[in-house]
């Protein structure tokens, strides 16, 4: 498929140069399927609540300031991704791109073929780095060998994994069986560097923006790349300003210091919507808020081993009420932590649970947990008291969730103690020791691999991390995830993952989803062309421009 032609078409639509009707007609002419057109239109509109691109000509001044959260760039070493991750300033590009619906498209690679465990990539021949030199297979090998030096990453790249076939062709073979490589390397950590350079070096990317200035803790500025191989950005300069505090970021937007603010406070959304000069955009669901039940803990954290307690917890939570009250309506009921689009039609394999207080009480009654004088159940002299650990990525992010769950569980006779970990390092410490019954998290899917999160959290076959030690049910879950990792097609992988999640949610009841979350952006009404991505690290800011 003519990817650059479709890109150009999307840009035309975003910039308001063509109507949606014209877009559909031309996209079909380029061979895009009806569902593909719908996805593209959805991406351009991003969501019903997102600002619809309008036919407004760009203004002369095209300097844009975007308020980002904390500056988490590592400055040196192999994990240094200045300008690429976590704030993607669009200086660099990957071989393949993650679309807002979590599908994967060609990017610097125009095509690829899977031959067993080896993927053969065919590079575009018209791509130039910002210093004018062409992109070749040597640059890709340099980049992937650099990843291998750092441990190989989730794609499991080794020192001999990348083999150059010719100037624009290369083979990549993971060190172990991994058919999900293509979906994994959409992450900006695998962006392609000019051979011999590192992230943050001026003029070494292939992207639409050129590195300008980076002041740690303050800002990173990028300028338009006039020689960009794809659709040229309209913005001349984009400054990503780091403002860690969400309230300050929102106020800076309202005060006009920012043109666009990332992750505005949920409590501020109504105010922003009622301000005529401002608007709110929401990305498709890519984040999740959920907690895991410790099913392999030792006393006093062994109550999660009782299936009746897990059943009661699942049905005692009013997810709709949670979204409406705690999240101010800014969330979606979804059954797993995977973005709905990543499982496609297989998402329906996971049934989930309805809010059923009497069902929860009945499950506990049947299991012999009787209500005590204080309303909390006991069995054999033991109180039904659980501990929830809150702290990932940090406690304030999950604000309101522990207290909501506490109140809901109390209604069925379960006492919930809340342990607040001050930061993610403390949280990891609790997790490593299994010192809790329920572990509350807000996370994000940032690649196209449906098996990514299930592998980390539930797959007992993995050798890193502590999650499966406490949350991995084993058995069919491991079989299904292993099958997903070696599935020859995305569709087969999605099916296997959906089967694994069905087992995790519906049968093992080890995972309790609270809500699917969308990233929320505030922007001035004279800012156009913004297409929110469900994965913020894959956000393309280069489409943003100013109309006034």
């Amino acid at each position, binding site marked *: 498929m003519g990817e650059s032609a479709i890109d150009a078409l999307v840009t035309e639509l975003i910039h308001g140069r063509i109507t949606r009707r014209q877009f559909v007609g031309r996209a079909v002419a380029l061979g895009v399927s009806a569902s593909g057109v719908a996805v593209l239109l959805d991406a351009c509109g991003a969501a019903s609540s997102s600002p619809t691109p309008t036919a407004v000509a760009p203004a002369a001044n095209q300097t844009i300031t975007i308020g980002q959260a904390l500056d988490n760039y590592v400055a040196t070493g192999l994990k240094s991704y200045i300008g690429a991750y976590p704030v993607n300033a669009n200086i660099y590009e990957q071989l393949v791109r993650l679309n807002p619906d979590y599908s994967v498209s060609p990017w610097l690679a125009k095509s690829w073929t899977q031959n067993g465990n080896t993927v053969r990539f065919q590079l575009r021949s018209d791509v130039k780095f910002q210093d004018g030199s062409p992109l070749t297979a040597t640059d890709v090998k340099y980049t992937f060998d650099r990843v291998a030096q*750092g441990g190989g990453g989730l794609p499991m790249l080794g020192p001999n994994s990348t083999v150059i076939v010719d100037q624009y062709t290369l083979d990549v073979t993971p060190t172990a069986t991994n058919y999900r490589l293509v979906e994994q390397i959409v992450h900006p950590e695998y962006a392609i560097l000019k051979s011999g350079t590192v992230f943050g070096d001026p003029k070494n990317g292939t992207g639409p923006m050129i590195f300008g200035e980076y002041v740690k*803790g*303050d800002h990173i500025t990028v300028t338009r790349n006039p020689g960009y191989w794809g659709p040229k950005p309209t913005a001349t300069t984009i400054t990503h300003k780091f403002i860690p505090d969400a309230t300050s970021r929102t106020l800076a937007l309202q005060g006009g210091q920012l043109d666009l603010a990332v992750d505005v406070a949920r409590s501020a959304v109504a105010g922003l919507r009622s301000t005529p000069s401002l608007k709110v955009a929401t990305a498709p669901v890519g984040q999740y808020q959920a907690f895991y039940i410790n099913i392999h803990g030792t006393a006093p954290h062994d109550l999660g081993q009782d299936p009746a307690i897990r059943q009661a917890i699942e049905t005692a939570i009013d997810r709709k009420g949670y979204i409406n009250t705690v999240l101010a309506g800014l969330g979606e009921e979804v059954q797993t932590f995977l973005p709905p689009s990543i499982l496609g039609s297989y998402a329906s394999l996971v049934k989930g649970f309805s809010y059923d207080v009497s069902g929860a009480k009945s499950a506990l009654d049947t299991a012999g947990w009787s209500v005590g004088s204080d309303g909390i159940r006991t069995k054999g002299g033991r109180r039904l008291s659980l501990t929830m650990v809150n702290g990932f990525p940090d406690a304030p992010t999950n604000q309101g969730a522990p207290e909501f769950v506490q109140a809901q569980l109390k209604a069925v006779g379960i006492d919930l103690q809340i342990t607040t*970990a001050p930061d993610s390092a403390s949280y990891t410490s609790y997790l490593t020791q299994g010192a809790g019954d329920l572990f509350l998290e807000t996370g994000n899917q940032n690649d196209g691999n449906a098996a990514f999160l299930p592998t980390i959290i539930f797959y007992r076959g993995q050798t890193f*991390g502590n999650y499966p030690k406490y949350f991995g049910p084993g058995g069919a879950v491991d079989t299904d995830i292993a099958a997903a990792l070696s599935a020859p097609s995305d569709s087969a992988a999605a099916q296997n993952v959906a089967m694994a999640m069905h087992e995790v949610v519906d049968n093992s009841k080890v995972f309790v989803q609270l809500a699917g979350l969308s990233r929320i952006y505030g922007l001035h009404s004279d800012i156009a062309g913004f297409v929110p991505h469900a994965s913020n690290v894959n956000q393309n800011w280069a489409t943003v421009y100013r109309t006034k």
Partner: protein
Amino acid sequence: MRGYVLRRLLLIIPTLLLLVLGTQFLATLAPGDPAENYARLHSTSGVATPAQIAHARVLLGLNRPFFVRYVAWIAGAVHGDLGVSFTRNTHVAAEIGSRLGATLELALTALGLTIIVATPLGAFAAMRHGSWFDHTLRAGSLLLASIPGFFLAYVLIEVFGTQLNLLPVAGREEASSIVLPAVALSAGGIATASRLLRASMLEVLGEDYIRTARGKGLSSVRVVARHALPNAALPVITVLGTLLGYLLAGSVVIETVFAWPGVGQLLAEAVAERDYPTIQGLVVIAGAFFLIINLLVDLSYRFLDPRVRLAKQ
């Protein structure tokens, strides 16, 4: 005098050594494994295997006994080497140096603002003891001292940044960027110093030498400026010295709210990342600031108060 200064300077050394010991001990007690954190940050998969964590423990020297690490750190510090950041791979001294300018700028501005505002307010309230101005200042300073810093910061941003659109609300790019954080940071100091100065001035204004000065026909302004204020300022200077120590250590809350890239923000990041060398470096630098400022405050008494000079002699 020279002997006194030398003795005080020498006392700083064991104090800092104890400070380092205490910091290292508390860091060890804190939950969270820095080796795991390091391994995870440096693994391109974002998760760390047990082998990577074990490797990181050796690499960071965390496998060495507590006192060996302590002595090694001290040995490095005396040569100006505060270690290498676990998470940034940069030299801690350089990292602190790159942030210190912003904090110094903010701290000194806030201190200047405190002195400029609190001095006339406190002095005037004492001169007009019992007047409406005096009552207003007492109530106002109590209110100001009771408002949490972050709340005042948001109010300032809302009023001057958002509603009136007069001042930038975040960052350090424009010269005017310092106004709001400096005001927010100095508010508590202004409240404390003005009340303290007022009380001290009231005491001094009742002294015989002030009556004598008035009896000689000196103007009120001259009496206050020349005779009352220098004597009343002593307790205020002690408070301002302590305040400056706090300000130089970096205000985590104010720097975070205003996105001010100083050492306060660095400290918050380092604690979250269990970056022991950076935490240790920051604590030692802040401790050294405190001790030196305390010394300077004590020395200033000699010049401001003739009684101290005479006692020393």
